[in-house]
């Protein structure tokens, strides 16, 4: 009997430890329900998260691609990054701010990062800037197999969603995935 108890606790410990931790979310997003059955692919994902207030965040799931993206941003926007900042970017899951304010954000200690308010990606194209489109272009050039996923909060207004879609379409991306949680067809 004791042996069975031991086995049970061992298995329990195993499962507790192997549940993957959710990556630290910058903002809580309540995803809408749908009857979609296709599970989210595991890798090669470029994720756009839309917060309830309309802020948009960007994330890549692969750390190497992140570094390459940072190099491209660095040369395109003429912003030098120190090695410490590059390393911080590598471990940054999601971020949303003007690209030009990235160096300052990356100098903040990782544990303090959650305290900094991130204003979301910049969509307006004044001054001939196309920050979001550049992000999309550079990431896809570094990794052509990237799939686009959009995780929008239930109550996020359609406008922010539309801006993301417009930016994607301008970069010739017409196929993307909307992340939803499961619901049965019969309500």
């Amino acid at each position, binding site marked *: *009997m004791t042996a069975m108890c031991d086995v049970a606790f061992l298995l329990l410990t195993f499962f507790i430890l192997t*549940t993957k931790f959710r990556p630290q979310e910058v903002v809580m997003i309540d995803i809408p329900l749908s009857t979609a*059955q296709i599970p989210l*692919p595991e890798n090669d994902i470029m994720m756009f998260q839309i917060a309830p207030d309309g802020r948009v965040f960007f994330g890549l799931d692969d750390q190497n691609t992140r570094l390459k993206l940072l190099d491209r941003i660095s040369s395109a926007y003429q912003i030098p990054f120190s090695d410490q900042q590059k390393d911080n970017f590598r471990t940054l899951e999601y971020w949303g701010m003007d690209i030009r304010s990235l160096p300052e954000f990356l100098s903040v200690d990782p544990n303090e990062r959650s305290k900094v308010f991130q204003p979301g990606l910049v969509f307006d194209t004044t001054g001939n800037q196309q920050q979001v489109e550049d992000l999309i272009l550079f990431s896809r050039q570094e990794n052509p197999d990237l799939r686009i996923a959009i995780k929008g909060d239930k109550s996020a*207004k*359609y406008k922010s969603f539309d801006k993301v879609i417009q930016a994607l379409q301008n970069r010739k991306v017409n196929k993307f995935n909307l992340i939803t949680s499961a619901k049965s067809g019969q309500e």
Partner: protein
Amino acid sequence: MAEMNVPAGGGKKGAKKVRSKKMSTRVDLTAMVDLAFLLLTFFMLATTMNKPKTMEVNKPAKEEDDKKEEPPIKMSKTATIMLGENDKAYCYTSPDEIDPDTKLELDSLDYSPRGLRTFIQRRQSEVQAMWGDKDELFIMIKPLPGSTVKNIVDVLDEMTINDVKRYAILEPKDPIDSLVAVTIGQSRE
């Protein structure tokens, strides 16, 4: 292991107490094992259910310069769903020709199965009766700025549930849309 022998007073060092009756406590641990298995089952199921699902969306490529002029679709084969504020969907069918006298039948529906789904199925059966094939139905989804991501996801979901083969997300730019927008009192900006 259903019982555990706890030596009463045997672990104390140095204390020379007068031991009264030696009581051996027997604790039944079956309950703990049951709890352990319950937790185990919970974790086993919870980790697999957590995977969020995705909904594939394919949009037609944005035509920049030379827009191929497709023959305009007969309005009676279409239905328009305009997504408004407060989780309301306004559904209507544009008449084939618009003149100053046309009355527009406008339904304000919610997203429950009784609302939107009934409308879609009704249109499908109408198109089936009129044109012979319910897959001819073309649904135009026009989201107003006041609608939310949840509305879009729900509408796209209804497309899949009702097996609508042709639908598109469009800007509310047609003249009929301005009429509807004025009627419901929401702006299109």
